[in-house]
């Protein structure tokens, strides 16, 4: 994809143009300023910057300055629209379509500007929408007439339109009326460049979006999940699809100035992707994505205000990315952190169960005549070293599955203190041995395994069998008494008694 990356020397050169005395030089270099981050265009909102950070924050959030108000209202509305519509893109695996759309609108922006040589919001809106629709239609056409796949078609259309757009806007900048056109804002986005006309347009699009999504939620949900089914129950799936695409185009077009052509697609996808990680229900995803979009908008506008001359678009997108990373790490269900915790809890449980099982074996070896055990005995049984075993026993005691036998508290020598399982510990120990032996029996009887092959598998399965599966195993094996090695399987009564 053809994205001009910020190129430091060029940026610096562009920056110097502001102070260059000769207008001739300014002309020559202004073209560069279009495709590099427009660091040169110090944010207008921050021209009013105060000195201290907190004062600036108070200044910003008091919303007293009209230009701050415009920037905030603008970015919040953009975040809202993009979050909601982007959710539909994400769940339908059409993320690249947002990218295509946002790049494809650029030639339309240039044409809209040429219409009456000014940044008339409506002319630019119409031009950009037309170009976006044309781009998406072209993708569909290429997909249907050739055997190229959709992603290739999108990649080509995206780059082709973007290239054309860059050439056209550069030419406009070179023209006499172009140097003050502000078209450069369309590349990387500057919330302060939003005019009241832009805000009006944004308001209308946001209103239309929320109304349509509320009114047709059921329809949009149905065509997004199962378009064929939606059509068979009489929904106009195709019209709804194009309606959604039209809304999306509108949202992209009105977001351009604040976020920039290159990054609008990120604002469509990132908040929605973060929301997708946090919820399993579509309506919550929409709510969360809208909230994340708005939050990123405010964050971006605020940091842009604080930082004097950083463009808003990248900051908004960075805000959204931050939210995504937080969701990725801290998400309660699919988050990395909770996965790690879950895995650790699981490992701990398995370790406990293995210790319990060894205690059971110890007692079984004595025909259950002796129910107390010492760490040293257990170490022998488990073929492990004493410190490891002592820590295992401590864990058992902590989980109230075992207790120190009264009267042996005086035993100083390591490994000589005596322990016994609590009733709760016995239940768990019997359960786990029962699972193990049932599974061994199942493998040898029902799955025709050799009896000396089944132990290792059972070592793993014993921890995974739920009560439902155990019941089914019992039924299948008709409540067996002995395992394949001839040992007794602890009975259900033993477990509950």
């Amino acid at each position, binding site marked *: 994809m053809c994205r001009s990356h910020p190129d430091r020397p060029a940026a610096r050169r562009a920056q110097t143009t502001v102070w260059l005395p000769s207008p001739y030089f300014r002309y020559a270099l202004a073209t560069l300023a279009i495709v590099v981050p427009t660091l040169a265009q110090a944010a207008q909102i921050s021209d009013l910057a105060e000195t201290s950070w907190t004062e600036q924050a108070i200044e910003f959030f008091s919303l007293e300055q009209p230009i701050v108000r415009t920037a905030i209202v603008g970015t919040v509305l953009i975040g809202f629209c993009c979050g909601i519509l982007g959710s539909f893109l994400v769940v339908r695996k059409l993320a690249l379509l947002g990218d295509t759309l946002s790049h494809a609108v650029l030639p339309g922006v240039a044409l809209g500007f040429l219409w009456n040589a000014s940044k008339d919001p409506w002319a630019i809106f119409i031009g950009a929408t037309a170009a976006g629709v044309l781009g998406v239609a072209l993708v569909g056409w290429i997909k249907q007439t050739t055997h190229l796949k959709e992603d290739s078609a999108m990649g080509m259309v995206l780059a082709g339109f973007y290239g054309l757009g860059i050439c056209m806007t550069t030419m406009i900048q070179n023209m006499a009326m172009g140097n003050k056109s502000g078209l450069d804002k369309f590349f990387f986005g500057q919330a302060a460049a939003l005019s009241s006309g832009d805000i009006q347009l944004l308001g209308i699009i946001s209103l239309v979006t929320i109304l349509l999504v509320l009114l047709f939620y059921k*329809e949009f949900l149905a065509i997004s999940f199962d*378009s*064929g089914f939606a059509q068979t129950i009489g929904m106009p*799936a195709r019209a709804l699809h194009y309606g959604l695409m039209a809304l999306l185009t509108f949202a992209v077009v009105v977001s351009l100035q604040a976020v920039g052509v290159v990054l609008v697609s990120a604002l469509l996808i990132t908040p929605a992707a973060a929301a*997708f990680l946090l919820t399993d229900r579509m309506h919550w995803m929409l709510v969360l994505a809208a909230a994340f979009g708005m939050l990123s908008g405010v964050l971006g506008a605020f940091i842009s205000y604080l930082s004097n001359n950083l463009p808003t678009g990248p900051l908004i997108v960075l805000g959204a990315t931050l939210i995504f990373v937080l969701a990725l790490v801290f998400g309660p269900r699919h988050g990395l952190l909770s996965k790690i915790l879950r895995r650790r809890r699981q490992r701990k449980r398995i370790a406990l169960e293995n210790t319990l099982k060894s205690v059971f074996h110890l007692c079984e070896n004595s025909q259950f005549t002796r129910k107390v055990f010492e760490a040293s005995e257990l170490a022998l049984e488990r073929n492990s070293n004493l410190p490891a075993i002592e820590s295992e026993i401590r864990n058992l005691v902590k989980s109230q599955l075992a207790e120190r036998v009264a009267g042996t508290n005086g035993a100083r020598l390591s490994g000589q203190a005596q322990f016994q399982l609590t009733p709760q510990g016995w239940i768990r120990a019997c359960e786990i041995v029962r699972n193990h032996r049932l599974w061994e029996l199942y493998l040898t009887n029902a799955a025709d395994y050799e009896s000396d092959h089944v132990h290792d598998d059972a070592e793993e399965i014993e921890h995974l069998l739920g009560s439902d599966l155990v019941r089914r195993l019992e039924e299948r094996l008709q409540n067996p008494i002995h395992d394949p090695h001839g040992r007794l399987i602890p009975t259900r009564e033993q477990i509950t008694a």
Partner: protein
Amino acid sequence: METPNEMRAAKSPPPLEVHDLTVAYTKRPVLYGIDLEVPKGSIVGVVGPNGAGKSTLIKAIMGLLPVASGWTKVFGQPFNQAVTRVGYVPQRESVDWDFPVNAMDVVLMGRYGRLGPFKRPSKADKEIATACLEKVKMLPYANRQISNLSGGQQQRVFLARALAQESDLYLMDEPFVGVDATTEAAIIEILRELQAQGKTLIVVHHDLTTAPEYFDRILLLNMRVVAFGKTEDVFTFENLQQAYGGRLSILSEVALERARKRAEGDTPENVGQ
């Protein structure tokens, strides 16, 4: 093809009537001149080799694919005027199961066809959806996100959604693919129950060994109707050999060639994107 006499006697139009249906679609084999009249209360297995056009037939009946010629009628009406009378179980692979909905949401979608625009599912709709989940023994999983369900459970959710449509004619595309034996038995039991209620079922099926046991009528399909009628009449060695034995190879070659030509001329629309 053969119309049973008892059908003629009945005054109401048949649940499904297909007349000279031809479907041509780019890179796939197509259907040619399909004629079909399915009597009420029958449970029809659509059987045929891969690429015989079984799914295509189902989709063409419901208007999901453009039809080159011929027509289909549902209870004597064009499909789009009888949508609420037709329930549909698509292939399980046709949707993305990571979609953020739970089993209940999916089943509720079965009610959407009766709701009309702007209306949300009512309490009564939710009760019906609950009952349908119960019927396929999926009620305990109602609040599960659908990707956390097994293949068989997902298929049962799809069946529950179709049940929630409360239709008179059901079109099911491979409902037994990738399901365990228990689910298969549960599904067939529900299909029999539907049949007993006088509903008509058309089920795409790929397993020849169970087909005669499950269906009282068989449609042997291989781009054309090889045979259609009562299972005991249709399920003969000669018919099966004709459907599966490659005797139609010349026809399929010509059909492919024609489909290619057509594709160069006009483009088929991609439905369900």
